């Protein structure tokens, strides 16, 4: 809870009213657009506790989808199903189906490492490797076995430009990634992910450790990136969801309560729990 409170009390670039104003103009319907990620009757258990209950959702291509909901509602867990990061949790068990472009990603023949190249992920706290900025961005390429110096340099530059970090770091690519500021680190991590040209970019509360100015930069970046990548973002901050996303999913206690385009969900929520949450009556 504390996390949510701190982020929502921050002065943000746009206030709620302005965010909603923008929403008035936007139209769109998830069912019109081609689907990128889809879950069908997804149940997930951590040992005996059930964390996701029968979640079915379709995430449209080349758009920003936000997961909102109170802490512990399962939104991060759901996000981590998309690149199978939950596999790392010892007693995690999954039932149901998750597809990426109609491929079942939990099929035994799927190579998890390859899947994660297609589905990049950015974490809550910036986690650059203790290597140079260049090596941070080139990490995934080197894992893929890319050795050609020119390919590496070009890709690193493209990724850093893509993450709006190039101008700030182009003169010090060999300094340690950890020497950057928090916001720069987070954009470095995004650059690291998009260097692999993934189809989907998952962001798990990417701005919760950042100050408002850095947050605004990352948000701007997301709006730009959605032209090329399908973006799924988990956030505690409803203004942020309203500002950056095209579609929003509200989750509560492991259930997918409501999924709609952001406009509809914030202005005309169908479910009472959704409206209670977005108006601040609980959570």
């Amino acid at each position: 809870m504390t996390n949510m409170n701190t982020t929502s009390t921050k002065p943000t670039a746009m206030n709620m009213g302005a965010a909603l104003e923008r929403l008035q103009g936007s139209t769109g319907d998830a069912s019109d657009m081609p689907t990128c990620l889809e879950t069908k009757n997804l149940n997930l258990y951590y040992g005996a506790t059930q964390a996701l209950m029968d979640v079915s959702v379709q995430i449209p291509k080349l758009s920003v989808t936000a997961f909102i909901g109170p802490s512990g509602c399962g939104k991060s867990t759901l996000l981590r199903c998309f690149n199978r990061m939950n596999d790392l949790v010892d007693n995690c068990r999954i039932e149901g189906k998750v597809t990426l472009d109609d491929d079942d990603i939990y099929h035994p023949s799927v190579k998890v490492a390859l899947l994660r190249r297609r589905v990049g992920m950015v974490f809550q706290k910036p986690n650059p490797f203790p290597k140079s900025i260049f090596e941070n961005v080139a990490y995934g390429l080197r894992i893929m076995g890319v050795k050609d110096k020119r390919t590496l340099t070009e890709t690193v530059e493209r990724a850093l430009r893509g993450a709006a970090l190039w101008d700030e770091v182009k003169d010090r690519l060999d300094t340690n990634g950890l020497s950057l500021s928090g916001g720069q680190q987070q954009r470095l991590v995004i650059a690291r992910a998009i260097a692999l040209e993934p189809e989907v970019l998952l962001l798990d509360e990417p701005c919760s450790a950042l100050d408002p100015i850095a947050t605004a930069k990352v948000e701007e970046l997301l709006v730009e990136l959605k032209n090329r990548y399908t973006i799924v973002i988990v956030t505690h901050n409803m203004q942020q969801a309203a500002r950056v996303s095209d579609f929003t999913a509200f989750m509560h206690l492991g259930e997918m309560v409501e999924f709609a385009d952001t406009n509809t969900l914030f202005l005309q929520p169908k479910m009472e729990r959704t409206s209670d949450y977005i108006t601040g009556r609980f959570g």
Partner: protein
Amino acid sequence: MKEWFKSGTPWVWGTAGGLAVALVLVFGVLWLTAARGLTYFWPAQVAETTFIEKDGSKIRLIGEVREHEEVSVRSLVESGFNIPGDEKFTTRYLLKLGNRDVSGFDFKWYPAPLLTELTYPKDLLTVERREWGNFYGHLKAVKENGNVVAEGEAAMPELEKRVARARQLFDEIFRTEKQDIGDVNYTLEQLRLKERKLQLEGKFDEAAKQSIESQRMAANGKFAEIQLRLEKLRAEIGRDSLSAEVMDGRVVDVPLAKVSEVYRANAMHLGDKLGFYFRKLYAFGTEDPREANTEGGIFPAIFGTVMMVILMSILVMPLGVMAAVYMREYAGHGPLIRVIRIAVNNLAGVPSIVYGVFGLGFFVYFLGGNIDELFFREALPAPTFGSPGILWASLTLAILTLPVVIVATEEGLARVPQSLRAGSLALGATKAETLWRTVLPIASPAMMTGLILAVARAAGETAPLMLVGVVKLAPNLPLDGHFPYFHLERQFMHLGFHIYDVGFQSPNVEAARPLVYATAFLLVLVIVALNLAAVSLRNRLRENYRGLEGM
């Protein structure tokens, strides 16, 4: 009072006191070994005095005053000294009289009241010999083939010149014996092994026999040639001698062939003494030991210690790191792994001699014996790897220090932030790639910590080594010019064992005592140097991973 306890002041005092005690102990050890050991190389003044015997007769004494202490007069009287006056306590001096071959004893205590005043005549000569220890006396003459060539004032410069010549000849003889004859011996031994091998394989035909025989003839010819050269050198070196008056008035001849150094300590200036001191110190670190280790240098022991520690590090690091990686990264959290972890921690507490016994039984007899059977049949029954040697000593120490490395590495792996592993995996790296590219590099400073602890423990360990490879005197270093250059099967010398041997097993304990301190000090220096090397490496590694703490 209660307030004072609450304020925390007693804690500050208590903890600071603990640190102070630790520091005093550490510096005490360093100071003691340095003071006792390093002063040994300073040229000691040679005193001359007279001792009054019980029957009133007087004998002249010449020697270095090594020590003095307060004793009760009563105990002196009881042991047969006739002390005048009625004082309760008096001083007694320990004199190093030298001339062991002439007078029969080297060190002796004398009560001060029975000695006349100590004088330091400038012409007293100290002769350091390669056998029988030091010689003290008044130089009378220098002789060549028994005929006097210089006397009186002219004797000293002449002597110095001839000693320098003798030393040069000695070095040449030494080199010839060690290298040239060593080479011939090596060749002959190789030929013998080749012959034996061919015989074992049943291929020892006429052609092979002739080839080996001719090579052997050549080697023997070379040997005879070297022998001839040596004989000539030996005749040369035996030419000169010095004659000097010793303390009981006899004039004794000392052949220069046995002399390594002559000087008049009482006539030396500070500059001379400093030069002498550093020359001696350098020789101590770079020369071979002489006279059952009580004289000369300790270079083979330093070399053996360092080489064993390096070998040990090379053996223990991969083993320990791999074991730790498996336990932390792959093994899970079952009861079995908990038992293994406890067992590993307990291994660190097993007495080192137990490892020595294990090393002897398993490595030397079993592994070494089998290696000999398989690969060195031609040398049997003489063992090659089936006897204690530096490889087995290093391996024994490697398993002795293994728990330290495992524990340190495990802790380092545990400290690698989970978020970094997740970050790497999310980029499509497999677990193994994540380990190689991210986790292990970040844990490397912790591995270095493990290595530092292992080195500190291994370099100081002595007991197990006595069983698996350390000897009092090793004829050859484990590293030399003969193929394959590294002789892992060879026995070696070690500073820790050297201290034990010189201090407690030597025939001349008084003479060797300062050497024990000097060697101990050097051992501490070697360990400090090895540790500093590892620490600086670790700090360089750490520098790369600063800023990770917050993750």
